[in-house]
């Protein structure tokens, strides 16, 4: 099992699905961000898996995964800063209240 690409891909697919459920189903904004991190990690796993099993992609996959991690960090920073800014206005971390964009 650990020697086949399919199992890693399916694993990452499941992780991505779990992340999707968490993003669509939780009320807390921070939970949504954590789910986003899960999804990004799933993508990372896919990239690394391809890098491991497909010879020409080996190094490229690693570099790309590295960059993805960096971008994820930046995005988490800004996202959490936004959530804290909104929290200061709305006094709640629940996204149900973040509906000022509708009428």
């Amino acid at each position, binding site marked *: 099992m650990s020697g086949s690409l399919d199992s890693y891909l399916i694993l990452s697919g499941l992780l991505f699905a779990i992340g999707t459920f968490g*993003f669509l189903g939780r009320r807390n904004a921070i939970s949504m961000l954590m789910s986003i991190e899960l999804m990004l990690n799933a993508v990372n796993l896919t990239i690394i898996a391809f890098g491991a099993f497909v010879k020409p992609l080996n190094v490229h996959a690693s570099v790309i995964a590295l960059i993805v991690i960096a971008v994820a960090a930046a995005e988490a920073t800004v996202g959490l800063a936004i959530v804290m800014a909104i929290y200061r206005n709305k006094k709640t971390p629940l996204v149900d209240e973040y509906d000022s964009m*509708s*009428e």
Partner: protein
Amino acid sequence: MTALLPLIPILPLGGFVLTGLLGRRYPEDAHRIAVWAVVAAWVVASIVAVMALLHASPFGTAGAGITLWTWIPANGFSHGFNADIGLFVDPLTACLLIVVTTIGMLVHVYSIGYMAHDPGRWRFFAYLNLFMFSMLVLILADNFLLVFAGWELVGLCSYLLIGFWYPRRSAAVAAKKAFLVNRVGDMGFALGIMAVWTQLGTLNMQAVFARFGSVPHEWQIAIALLIFCGAVGKSAQFPLHVWLPDAMEGPTPVSALIHAATMVNAGVYLVARCNPIFGAAPEVMVVVAAIGIFTAILAASIAFTQTDIKRVLAYSTLSQLGYMFASLGVGAWTAAIFHLMSHGFFKGLLFLDSGSVIHSVDGEQDMRKMGGLARKIPITYATMLVGSIAIAGVPPLAGFFSKDEILGGAFKNGFLWVWAIGFVVAGMTAFYMFRLMGMTFWGPSHVDAEVEHHIHESPRSMTGPLIVLAIPAAVLGLVIGFPPETGLLHQWLAPVFEGTIAASGHAEAAYNFFGIDGALAIATTALVAVAIVVAWRLFGVEIPSLGLRAQPRPDQVREISARRGLAALYNGSFHKWWFDDINNKLFVEWGGKLAAAAFWFDRTIIDGTVNGVGTVTAGAGGWLRRVQTGRVQNYALGIAVGLIVIAAGYLYLAIR
């Protein structure tokens, strides 16, 4: 000579325009232009008429016309349509011209005095001139479309003049009623004109008559019926007679001119003018005669019990018009025109007389509040007596000759039932006319006290026309109708009707006084005499010069009218045989309900559907609006669903 023809209608038209534009500023002189215009038209019309009657050139026996210009040039299509403004005069037109312009002129002069105190006189004279123009266009037109134009215009003028005192509600309602009932007939006429055009491709009357034989027989019947339909409306025959009595709301000169002498004759003129059309459809002639004579007896029966002097005369007009249509229907064409002319004169005289009577008793129109006026308004009384004698049919006045010709024609052409009913109606006519005379002029006075002491004779501008009209009322019969069937009128009008008379096979036997004709004449005269005597006994008479004196017996009248059997008749007659109530129930009430139902349908279902579309759209929009929650998670769900759909689709396609 034919160049004079356009002048006849244009003079009153000019009078209308000038009086209409300038009348308001010069109300005192408003009548001058109008009266002079009509007098001038009378002069020109008389010249033209005399020449046409004498068959002088350029009229000859067939008449002549002039085309002024092409009104609707639409000849370039597969079904070309061409209508001109053209005028045509033949002996028939000439007879009508004489009647219309003479009575019109006298009515105009009469109105100077009658409307002297009315602030709207300028409007009155303007409308009168417009009416003269319309009627002359109707008579002089040479094609059906122009006749229809004149037809509608006289209807309009009738509306304007009946409702002249429009602040009075009854007048406005009567005017509307007249116009609407006329419209029903006009619709039939319009359909008839359309039928003529589809069958023959032309609307020029002489051309239509020449080729009418080529039309299939069902179409001939249809066209004749539809044209008669128009005549029924305009000349107030049953069942469209209901407007004429109410039209008495208008001023008396209007009643005299329009509803006695000219407009109601338009129907008779139309049928007479279209005699080739009717001759080709004998079935329709029977219908014409039936409706005519039925109207005659219906109207005469109502006149028995009416108390308004103008109403009695209005029903009398209906009755005499019925006579004319009966005459047309049985094939006695010239007799009908003869009766038209004589009736125009004596009915015009009677109406103007009644106007004079009403003027003298300060506007009172109820005969029960009159009486004993003979001594007080002698000229009016004398002329009205002449008119009554004429209409009753006492020889040798005009009514006798014309009525006798009609009855004789009915009898000899085989329409015995028409003769019988007409015979009875002659007696009824005499009775109710002398009832009118008795209640108005003879016997004790029932006039209101404060009106009584200023009963005065009318001014000369009013009595003048009365005297002038009394002359033809008296002698017209002798002049143009004697000897019967070979008199001047027959000679003049023979070329107009000979085609139809020959085709119908009713050869006119020579008048034989010692044969059937004489017997009929004597029978009619006897019945008339009996009726007059009965009327004298019941309603009184006072003619000192003839030694006739009798007191009215109102108790006897009451007792007779309360007798079993007669009481029901009296009731029916008094309520005009409930025609107005039937019309009211049928058209106003039920028609109103139908209209209300249609309104409900329109408002609820049609508007509901249209509004419903809007409501549904708004509702759908409101419901769809809820998609925009403003929450990112809902939008993300949408993205996820879309992603799944696309990916699954691709997967499915790739696997397949």
